């Protein structure tokens, strides 16, 4: 076609921009290029269509159309179906919902959890949204939130104290996830900078810490937290188990964050450091204004990946007897009224984790796009 246009004769320098040939763009072009481009592609397209057709309808029937939403126990559930187990018995999840969310948190004090949750949402919005009036105060609030939240949940200072052994379910999962995420990021950045420091002693400490923590499975660290730490502490002192677990989870993910951030720091050209130096910026100002904004931007995928890993790994605490959402759910399965409803339970838990992690992943993508300034130095 290009030859035709040349034949139509544009003088040199006057050739206009022409639209692309019709068949390469638009929905028709997309289907041709992506679904039907070759015999193999056509076969695969048909195979996928057949798979979806045979899997999707029964799955939807079970999970939605034939599902039972209210019942007193599993027998009641099955009695309401055409045949037992033809559909999901969501009544089980509904009935246990408050337990799954609050654990054994005392009923009259649950408003505190609700307020903490609302404040958490506000803090997250405050950090993530750009165009808020008074952004500075939102950020201060976000920094203060972990402490306000901890006070609301464990009490003291005017509130009825609630022992941490009463925490469980989604509440516990979110506490571990949010604490780990908020504290491991700054700690990880500090470790990454320390590892690249010119001071040999500081560098050695950071390297040993990172390599040791990375070289040990998280479960081992949790066992250390639950048993061994008591040997190191002065006799008679009690140190809350949840606190120990939070520290271990934070340290564990900080070591990974440190390595991710170090990768980001290495991704910057030395010219950026030299330009900052030559302008007379001090180490801290150069890092705050020039180096870290760029290094963290490069590291976003890795950082969010680590956060997602941390969030999901929080279920490992069930091994040392803490009842997070998975531990609590498994305990509920032993209830004689609801025996044998494992699919419903695990699907619910999977959905919960998926929603949390998927939104983190989507946010990280949109953040990357927003920070894109059309460059590569």
């Amino acid at each position, binding site marked *: 076609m290009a030859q035709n246009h040349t034949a139509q004769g544009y003088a040199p320098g006057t050739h206009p921009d022409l639209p692309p040939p019709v068949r390469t763009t638009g929905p028709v072009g997309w289907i041709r290029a992506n679904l039907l481009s070759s015999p193999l592609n056509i076969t695969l397209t048909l195979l996928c269509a057949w798979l979806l057709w045979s899997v999707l309808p029964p799955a939807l029937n079970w999970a939605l159309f034939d599902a039972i939403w209210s019942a007193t126990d599993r027998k009641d559930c099955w009695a309401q179906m055409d045949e037992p187990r033809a559909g999901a018995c969501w009544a089980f999840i509904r009935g246990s919902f408050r337990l799954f969310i609050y654990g054994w948190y005392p009923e009259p004090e649950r408003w505190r959890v609700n307020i903490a949750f609302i404040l958490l949402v506000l803090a997250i919005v405050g950090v993530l949204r750009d165009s808020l009036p008074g952004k500075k105060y939102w950020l201060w609030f976000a920094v203060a939130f972990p402490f306000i939240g901890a006070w609301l949940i464990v009490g003291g200072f005017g509130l009825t104290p609630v022992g941490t052994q009463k925490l469980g379910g989604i509440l516990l999962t979110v506490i571990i996830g949010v604490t780990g995420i908020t504290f491991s990021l700054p700690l990880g950045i500090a470790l990454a900078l320390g590892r690249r420091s010119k001071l040999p002693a500081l560098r050695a400490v950071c390297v040993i810490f990172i390599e040791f923590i990375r070289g040990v499975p998280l479960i081992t660290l949790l066992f250390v937290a639950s048993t061994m730490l008591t040997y190191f502490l002065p006799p008679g002192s009690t140190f809350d188990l949840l606190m120990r677990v939070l520290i271990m989870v934070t340290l564990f993910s900080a070591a990974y964050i440190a390595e991710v951030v170090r990768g980001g720091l290495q991704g910057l050209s030395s010219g950026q450091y030299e*330009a900052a130096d030559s*302008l007379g910026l001090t180490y801290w100002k150069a890092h705050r204004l020039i180096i870290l904004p*760029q290094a963290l931007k490069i590291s976003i995928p890795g950082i969010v990946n680590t956060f997602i890993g941390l969030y999901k790994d929080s279920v490992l605490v069930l091994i040392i007897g803490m009842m997070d959402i998975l531990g609590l759910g498994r305990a509920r399965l032993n209830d004689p009224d609801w025996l044998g409803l494992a699919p419903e339970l695990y699907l619910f838990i999977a959905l919960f984790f998926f929603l949390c992690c998927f939104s983190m992943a989507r946010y990280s993508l949109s953040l990357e796009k927003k920070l894109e*300034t059309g460059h590569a130095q």
Partner: protein
Amino acid sequence: MNNPDDTQNNAVELAEPIITINGMHKWFGDFHVLKNINLEVRRGERIVICGPSGSGKSTLIRCINRLEEHQQGTITVDGTELTRDLKNIEIVRSEVGMVFQQFNLFPHLTVLENVTLAPIWVRKMPRAEAEESAMQYLERVKIPEQALKYPGQLSGGQQQRVAIARSLCMNPRIMLFDEPTSALDPEMIKEVLDVMIELAESGMTMLVVTHEMGFATAVAHRVIFMDGGEIIEEKPPQEFFESPDHERTKLFLSQILHH
């Protein structure tokens, strides 16, 4: 583009030295990059440094603002000796501007933010004032209309001019240029050289590592030729090009002038 006129030359000859380098040596590990460098630069003087690649010319000017550390000898910049003392390094860096081959603009900041960053954070200038002076410098390098773009959206020549404005915004007494036009497409070299010539005419002390011999002839008081980490020869540009003393200088000139 004439030679600097005689009155200006005389004024420079009478001016006091602003950079004094005495018996300076530098090693990269075992590699002896700079050997016994002695150099005095007077206030307002413009020096072009040339030489084959690996001759140590970039390293030499990078020692002047301590991007590289020297191991022997002394470097004194405007009365401040460069030692390990961070205070002194800070003083020197705030008086010496530097322009790099690869521009090294901050890609996550707009042009205006690039230019105002150091005045605001190093000089503690109020933002409004910094922006006003930044716009003046951007006008001086002829790109005020790009102020709100990001460096990645500019051409190489424009980026290099922003880099020059960024250094000028700190009111430096000395400007170092490390091959400022080597990374540019040919059609952009002139716009950067024009800005540098204008800067030279304003009386700035300049040390320029470059192979742009036209620029050297037009504005330099002295041309320094380096090879193997030593200063081989230094002369006013006309003499340097017409009657170099050393064989190595002649060879180098024949290589860059006739091809």
